């Protein structure tokens, strides 16, 4: 059962020197929540056979994140990059990704992380699934290939759900589902020396500039500022038992303990 697996990844901002966000190879890296997803994809590829392709959307500097996926073992990396994509919100991003994924048909599985380290909306995976008109399971915790497709275990809100899914399908993968493999030096050398990330423009995707970028985005970010977290220390009076009881009461009141 050869599987054609597509993994959508993001190059996230990890450093903003002097408070300015400049997307460069120094300030960005592969979203850490995407690494377990890549592990799932590579493992399925090893077990079932087939190919794993990684796609990302972003400026040219995002190609480095794709090179890192190739260092992990991904066979093909595609960067959707076009000046008209600047300012895309999650829906415009999903529009571009869905167009690229259609170009890669036939495929069996499209995988996303559940979130990103730099904006954390969790929307792109589900939105892309809707645009592709494909079944979706979010927060997949374990994925087992079976004859008819996949058995998926999903964990959320203290429950465990099991799904049977036929191909093609979309999953968002829980970051705790697997431990991503270490990237060895041989893989890094191979990815940088011999692998080349493909660059796809809007024209290649068959999209017009109005469908993406700021024009194609129904939402706007009006402002962005860091939230200052304030912590205060309070000593609880009384005996150890009284202190413990008071602490539990406060946890219950704040909803931290049910």
């Amino acid at each position, binding site marked *: 059962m050869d599987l054609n697996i597509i993994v959508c990844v993001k190059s996230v901002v990890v450093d903003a020197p002097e408070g300015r966000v400049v997307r460069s190879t120094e300030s960005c890296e592969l979203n850490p929540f995407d690494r377990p997803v890549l592990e799932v994809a590579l493992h399925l590829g090893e077990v079932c056979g087939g190919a794993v392709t990684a796609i990302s959307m972003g400026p040219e500097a995002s190609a*480095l994140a794709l090179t890192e996926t190739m260092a992990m073992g991904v066979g093909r990396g595609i960067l959707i990059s076009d000046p008209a994509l600047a300012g895309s919100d999650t829906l415009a991003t999903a529009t571009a990704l869905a167009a690229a994924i259609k170009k890669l048909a036939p495929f069996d599985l499209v995988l996303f992380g559940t979130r990103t380290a730099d904006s954390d909306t969790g929307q792109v995976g589900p939105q892309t699934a809707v645009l592709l008109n494909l079944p979706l399971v979010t927060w997949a915790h374990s994925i087992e290939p079976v004859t008819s497709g996949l058995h998926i275990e999903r964990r959320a809100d203290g429950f465990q759900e099991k799904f049977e899914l036929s191909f093609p399908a979309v999953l968002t993968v829980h970051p705790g589902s697997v431990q991503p493999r270490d990237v060895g*030096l*041989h893989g890094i050398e191979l990815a940088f020396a011999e692998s080349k990330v493909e660059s796809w423009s809007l024209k290649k995707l068959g999209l017009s500039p109005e469908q993406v970028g700021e024009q194609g985005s129904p939402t706007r970010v009006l402002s962005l500022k860091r939230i200052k977290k304030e912590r205060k220390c309070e000593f609880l009076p009384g005996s150890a038992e009284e202190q413990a009881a008071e602490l539990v009461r406060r946890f219950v009141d704040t909803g931290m303990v049910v």
Partner: protein
Amino acid sequence: MDVFLSEKNRAVRRSVRTFCKRELMPIAKDIDQEARFPWEVVEKMGKLGYFGVQIPKKLGGAGMDAMSFIIVIEEISRVCAGLGLCLSVHYGVGVYPLMAFGSEEQKKKWVPPLARGEKIGAFCLSEPNAGTDAGGIEATAIRDGEHYIINANKVFVTNGGVADFCLIFARTNPEAGRKGISVLVAERGTPGFVVGDLEDLCGMRANPVSSIRLYDCRVPVENLIGKEGMGLQIGLRALDTGRMGIAAQALGIAQAAFEEAVRYAKERHQFGVAIAKHQAVQMMIADMATQIDAARLMVYRAALLSHQGKPFSQASAMAKLFASETACKVTDMAVQIHGGYGYSKSYPVERYYRDARVTRIYEGTSEIQRIVISRGVLGM
């Protein structure tokens, strides 16, 4: 500082850092206290290519540049200096001489398992009466037909307790003085090859430093590296690469101590404010940051020169001298910032303080580095 690094170098740093955080950081304190070589982690390091960073791909290595080698040593040493030492010695003075002076047959025979970390290399020069004065060694390797018979008492052998592949410096011609010294490979398991007791060291305790003694140990003539009499030439060339590795190791230790000191200075309150608010502490933090930055520039310059195939002996000696002395100063200040807690095993800075000290001693003392540097400057 990142301006010196390629995207590939940065990818190497990210991957090694991730590995260290998960695999080494949780055990670093314990393996120091237990003086234990963590085979379970070393095997993983071998599979990831850390033992063969610069070894060509066709011989099983990753085929990377000197900067990547430096980054791997720096990052591993930032978490566990004893393992950083293991890697530095393994390649810098263990495998590198074989790559530079060995025959193609010798490389094919020995390098692939060394590149994969399945075998570990060691450099056996120091003896009870010879260290800095390398020309004073007493070990002998006397030709007997198609073999050499080696008798040697080598001390302070880094990786000694686990090394399979040892470069032995011995006199093949006892009458020829410094020109009578040669380098031969002796493999663990050869009759007469004896590993002595492990040293109970102040720092670098995860590294099994031991003596290695050879009693009438017969090795085939094919185990001679280069030609007879080339021993000191090979040794000095190897030390250029080795010193770069030790400089990177010292840098990693200094960086770790600095990070701990900064964290602690922000957390610890005295006189109603974090001690980072006190100017006395700020002065130390500034000195630490500046010295580490300067050391890193020097280490990276040596690596760049080496990669470009330019002479780097002088740069390597300067980097080793400055980085090792920086490591000692920085770890000392880190302990000072921690106060009494810095002298306790509850905090890691006391380990960094112990680990840093030997970087001024091995692979050429600070004093011998100054001699190398002054000879270069004065042309003498």
